[in-house]
């Protein structure tokens, strides 16, 4: 329920171990409307993850600002927006049960376990609640990561190729699940991928980045209905337009 204004003066990686310093962003500006599903589409190694990390507050080594504004009518939270991040790898705690992994971000909430279990039910993993994450398949681990992200009822959801290295059927099921979860708990989403079809299937807006420093080379609104998103030719037509 939060809009994001990204305004980066400069972001560079210092030279390390023989590699030269790299300029990642200069004078980069991106505004994300509340409840938008913005897909950042770019080839690997361009700085998409870096952008998410800056938004998440994990990387503060840049000049510029990132502002979160509550949607019209909503009050700003004093502690900042509630932020969830689905990383490229699930990043679950292997020594905590699936249930604990989902419940831990809820803090001292007395209903934490109950809420976590309800979330697991929604991602279809209620029966695995007491298992340790390493006993699950990668697809199931990614579901747990999704459950953890949605359990805190996030204002902003950052996703960094969360469905990478799954087979196509598994990735499609997870994309379906993500859409359903977002209907129940709307959030402002920034979703990073290098897969243009995934971008069209999911996004309400696709921002294509390229070059070094990275620039926005295309910014396309996706007006597809839920039915069209499932139709391969409609997706393919728009995909050509984005890449074009």
């Amino acid at each position, binding site marked *: 329920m939060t809009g994001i204004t990204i305004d980066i003066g400069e972001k560079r990686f210092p030279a390390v171990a023989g590699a030269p310093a790299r300029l990642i962003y200069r004078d980069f500006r991106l505004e994300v409307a509340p409840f938008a599903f913005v897909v950042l589409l770019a080839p690997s190694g361009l700085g998409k993850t870096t952008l998410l990390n800056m938004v998440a*507050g994990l990387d503060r080594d840049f000049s510029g600002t990132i502002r979160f504004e509550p949607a019209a009518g909503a009050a700003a939270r004093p502690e900042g927006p509630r932020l969830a991040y689905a*990383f490229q790898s699930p990043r679950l*705690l292997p020594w905590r049960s699936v249930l*604990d992994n989902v419940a*831990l*971000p809820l803090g001292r909430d007395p209903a934490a376990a109950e809420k976590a279990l309800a979330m697991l039910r929604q991602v279809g993993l209620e029966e695995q609640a007491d298992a340790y994450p390493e006993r699950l398949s990668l697809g199931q681990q990614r579901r747990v990561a999704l459950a*953890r992200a949605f359990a805190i009822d996030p204002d902003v959801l950052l996703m960094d190729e969360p469905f990478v290295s799954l087979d196509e059927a598994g990735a499609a099921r997870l994309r379906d699940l993500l859409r359903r979860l977002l209907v129940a708990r709307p959030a402002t989403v920034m979703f990073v991928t290098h897969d243009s079809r995934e971008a069209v299937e999911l996004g309400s807006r696709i921002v294509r980045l390229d070059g070094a420093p990275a620039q926005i080379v295309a910014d396309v609104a996706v007006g597809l209905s839920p039915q069209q998103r499932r139709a391969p030719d409609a997706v393919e037509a728009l995909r050509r337009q984005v890449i074009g």
Partner: protein
Amino acid sequence: MAFLRSGTATTGGSGGEAARSGLAGATMTLISLALLALAWQAAAWLIDSPLLPGPPEVAAALMRASADFALPRNILITLGRVAASFLVAMVVGAAIGIVLGRSKALDRVFGPWLIVLLNLPALVVIILCYVWFGLTEAAAITAVAVNKIPNVAVTLREGAAALSRELDEMALVYRFGPLRTLRHVVLPQLAPFFAAAARSGLALTWKIVLVVELLGRSNGVGFELQTAFQLFDVATVLAYALAFTLVVQIIELVLLQPLERRAGRWRR
């Protein structure tokens, strides 16, 4: 002989070791120890000297030492010193190791100190502690702890340097806060390093405690060994050695191994 048999039965049954390695493994251990006892008895017969008493003589010495509760009392005193110095060494060593593992700059400054301490002979530390702090209980425990601290620090430094940055970031994004991060993210990652430090630590600690007692205490297993040494009473030396080894083995089986298994439960 009788003493040895009952000893192995206790360890096999109480530690759950038999359940894991199977009955066959426990039987093999029993046979192996029985063989050792036989070889010992054979050697005692061959040499036929009070300087190599056989199992029956050692068992008799054991009974003698236990009759006035001297043996259990001394073992308890020594175990108390082991526990105290072990605890001090683990806490101080872990703190030093974690700090050095997290800060490259501090590690560059103080890392070499660890190497020096690590290579300082235990005896030197013991003598210095007694000379500087007197023949006191605190000096004895300090001497043992100082011997062990660099070991723990080096192990935990390795663990702290290998902490997952990815999980750190996850905890940060999901606002775990410092205490929950420590409990749910950091300490579980360090658990195997704590276990390794504890395991090698206990072995080192109890050996050094005996030396410390021999040099500057008036009770404990080390002191009794010295008394027996002066009387050339080898049977008593062996009786104390056997009893103490057995106690340490039991601690290993009923305390350390179950703890390790518990910490490693989540592994596939």
